[in-house]
Each structure stands twice: as C-alpha cells, then as structure tokens.
C-alpha cells in the first residue's frame, strides 16, 4: 500500500508490535480558560477510545490536540516512544481527522471531492478503485456525480466520512461523526471502523450518541475540569 505505518498485528498477540498513541497528563488551554488537566490514556493498535462528556468539556479540544493542530499546555503526547511534537509532519501523515464540518464544496461532485483529497493525502496507485470503494461503502454511488449543493446534510456527512477510506492512515480522529447520519449511515460507519481496527488501525472518537463499537475504552472528560483552586487558576497564567 503506502509508506504509512499500517501494521497487521494479531489481536491475540501478547505484546503489540505497532506503536500506541500515549497521552500523559495532558492539559489544554484555550486563551485564558483551562479546558482540562491531567488527561492520560493509551490507545493501542486495533483499539478504540470513546470520548464522552458534556458541552464544553473539551472533547473537540482533545481531538485537535491529538491531531497536532493544538499544542498541549502541559503533558506529553507520544506515538510509541517518540513525541508527537518532535515531528508533526509525520504525525499528520499517519492520521485522518474528521471534524464538525464536512469540508464539502457546493460546486464539486463527490467523486471530484474524493479525488482531490486522495491526491492531497498522497495516494498514488489504484486511486480510482479506492474512490469507488469509498463511495460504495457509504452508499454514495447514486449521487457520485451530482454537485454537492444538491446533497442533503446526511449525505455530506457520509462524504466527509468517505474520505477516511481513500487513503490509509493508522489513526482516525472523529469528532461527532454520527451527527446528521441516519441509522443506515451509522451502521456503515460502524462497519468501516471495525474493518479499520481489524487492520490494526486506531480510532479516537468523540460522541454523544451510543455507537456499537465493541472492546472500546471510554474516557469521560467531565471529571477533568480544574477545580476552583486559586493556585491552579493563577498558574494558568504561566501555563
């Protein structure tokens, strides 16, 4: 496939041979507000981590931090032994990020959209086939050549998720992926995630709604808000 590290470990192996995504004591600050402190987790190959928590608890911030768009105010994020911050470009190359927005241009068709993103993510060979597979996986074949302005919100969301399939990546970061999706779309997403994990991929996803993802860890972010401790908040000035 590609040069991205996408290992094929056995799920029953005693020790994973692929790097884990490790977060140690992460703190996140947006402006003067401390969003969370002391978040730690370990996401192994084939694993899934669900982020839950109320509004403003920092789920999106944690995802952006994991993507390397945001730098942590404290703590470290590493891929295996190496710090993510040490080589952000490589980290970006090994992940797919699906945020709240769909990044869909009204005048382009789904097929053109996927072609653009596939080329951007460095996909070389078998591009057409990968795009067809992606469209089929999310049942977008009937609308593949319509301008995206004619698509419904749910179809645009499916298109945004179909991007996950046009180029391989070891880590998927999904922010509320099921928003606007109907039951069929949700089921397709669950299938796609399961296939990704079988291939050794990792998924970190934030969600309000229940998703059928088995053997997943859960991280509830509500408990990580800093208490009303003056010393802690003042230290936020120097964070």
């Amino acid at each position, binding site marked *: 496939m590609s040069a991205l590290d996408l290992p094929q470990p056995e799920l029953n192996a005693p020790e994973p041979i692929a790097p884990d995504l490790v977060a140690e*004591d992460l703190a996140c600050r*947006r*402006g*003067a*507000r*401390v969003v969370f*402190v*002391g978040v*730690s*987790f*370990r996401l*192994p190959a084939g*694993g*899934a*981590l*669900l982020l839950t928590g109320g509004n403003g608890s920092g789920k999106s911030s944690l995802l952006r931090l994991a993507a390397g768009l945001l730098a942590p105010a404290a703590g470290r994020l590493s891929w295996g032994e190496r710090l993510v911050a040490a080589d952000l470009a490589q980290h970006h190359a090994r992940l797919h990020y699906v945020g709240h927005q769909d990044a869909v241009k009204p005048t382009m068709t789904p097929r053109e959209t996927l072609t653009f993103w596939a080329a951007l993510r460095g996909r070389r060979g078998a591009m057409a086939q990968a795009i067809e597979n992606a469209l089929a996986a999310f049942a977008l074949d009937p609308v593949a050549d319509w301008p995206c302005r004619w698509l419904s919100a749910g179809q645009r969301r499916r298109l945004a998720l179909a991007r996950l399939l046009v180029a391989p990546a070891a880590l998927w970061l999904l922010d509320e992926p099921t928003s606007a999706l109907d039951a069929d779309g949700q089921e397709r997403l669950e299938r796609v995630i399961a296939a990704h994990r079988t291939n050794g991929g990792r998924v970190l996803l934030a969600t309000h709604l229940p998703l059928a*993802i*088995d*053997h*997943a*860890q*859960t*991280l*509830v972010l*509500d*408990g*990580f*808000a*800093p*208490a*009303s*401790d*003056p010393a*802690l*908040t*003042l230290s*936020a*000035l*120097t964070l």
Partner: protein
Amino acid sequence: MINRFANPARFMRLSAAILPWCAAATVALLAIGLYLALVVAPPDYQQGEAVRIMYVHVPAAWLALSVYLFIAVASGVALVSRHPLAEIAARSAAPIGAGFTFICLVTGSLWGRPIWGTWWVWDARLTSVLVLFFLYLGYIALVNGFDDPARGAKAGSVLALVGVVNLPIIKFSVDWWNTLHQPASVLRLGAPTIALSMLVPLLVMAAAFWLLFATLLMVRMRTGLNERKALALRLNRMPVPSSVRAEPASPASESVASAGPALR
C-alpha cells in the same frame, strides 16, 4: 537574566517599586527639556522660532520608530518562547507608540505651516511616519479584532514581524517617490545643522520621551496583567465536587485502562 524578570508576579513587584521613580524622573526631564527647548535654545537663522517644534517632533519620531522595533522584538520573543509577558509588553506598547507617531505627525504639520504655508506637506519623513501610523493602527485593530484575546495577541505578533521587515522597504520606496516628485528647491523638513546648543535640548527631550514610554508601558502592562488574572479567575471557576479535586484522574475516568481495553 530575562528569565529572572520574566515571571509575571515578579514583574508586578518590580514595577510597583520602580514606577514612582520613573514617573518622577519623566516629569523632571520633561520640564527641563521643555525649558531648554523653548527658552534656552537659540532660534534658527532660517526658520526662526518655528524651529522649536523640532524639539518635540524629532524625539517623537525617534520614539515612534523605536517603539515599533520594541514591539517587533517582543513579538519575536513571544512567538518563539510563548511567554505571556512578552505578549503583554508588545500589546501595551502599541498605543503608546501610536501616540508618539501622532504627536510626530501633528508637530510636523504645525512645523510646516509657518514655513510653507500649508498644513500638510508630503515630505519624505512625514510620509514615512504617516505609513508607520497606519501600521500601528493596523496592529492595534488586529490585536483587538478577535473575540478571543489570545488569538489577537498571536496574530499581532506575526503582523509586527511582517511590519518590521517591511519598514525599511517602505522607507526606501517613500524616499524614492519623494525624490522623483519633489522639486529640488524645497527646504527639507529636517533639523538644521546641529550645534551643541541645539543638540542638548534634543537629547534631553529624547530621554524624557523614553522615560515617558517606560512609565506608560509599565502602567499598561500592570493593568493588562491584572485584567488577565481577573479573566482567568472568572473563566476557571467551575463547580466541581471536592472529592474530585483530590486526584487528577477522577473516579468517573477509571474506565480508562492503561493496560488492555475494558468491555463497554
């Protein structure tokens, strides 16, 4: 050494101690400088008494440029080290620098009136200072143009660096433009040949302006730091039960396993 003074709390203590002295020295030097400029210094044989405006105009121009360089250096430090004090220093200095630039423009205009009979003249220096004024206004507008003040501060840092790189280019292009369009006979709006009797008041006024800048900067930085503290306290007041405070990993998160996944 920078790290020693870089702590915000330490800066507050230091500035509280220095500020009264700085303010007193500013007032003293301004008084001396103005006396020297308006009373003691001789009138120019060509420009007459009007040359006395130079003693405010020229130091103001020096400060206008120096403060912009200060902002650029502070912005560079802020971008590299992300230190809050550097950011606040840059942000606080901007209105002071804009003020000096404005004084320079107004005194330049007043200076030109008795000499050329017009309120504005497109002299090379005045024009450069005018463009510098717009650079200041742009910086201030950008820093204050976001709902999130942190974003504004960071954007301002980049803009200050872009501006400082462009300053010599703008100066060069304004000089070029001026030589192309200005007839050669016009008097340059510059200082006449500097005699000692004129140099001393000039330097005293420059020193006074520098002290004024330092005083105002410290006042603004202290205000800025206090505002920041107040904002942090307000935003980070969250009603969390005290049992959670004890450990960073709350009871609710014990489902996060560091070894092996847990079944949902």
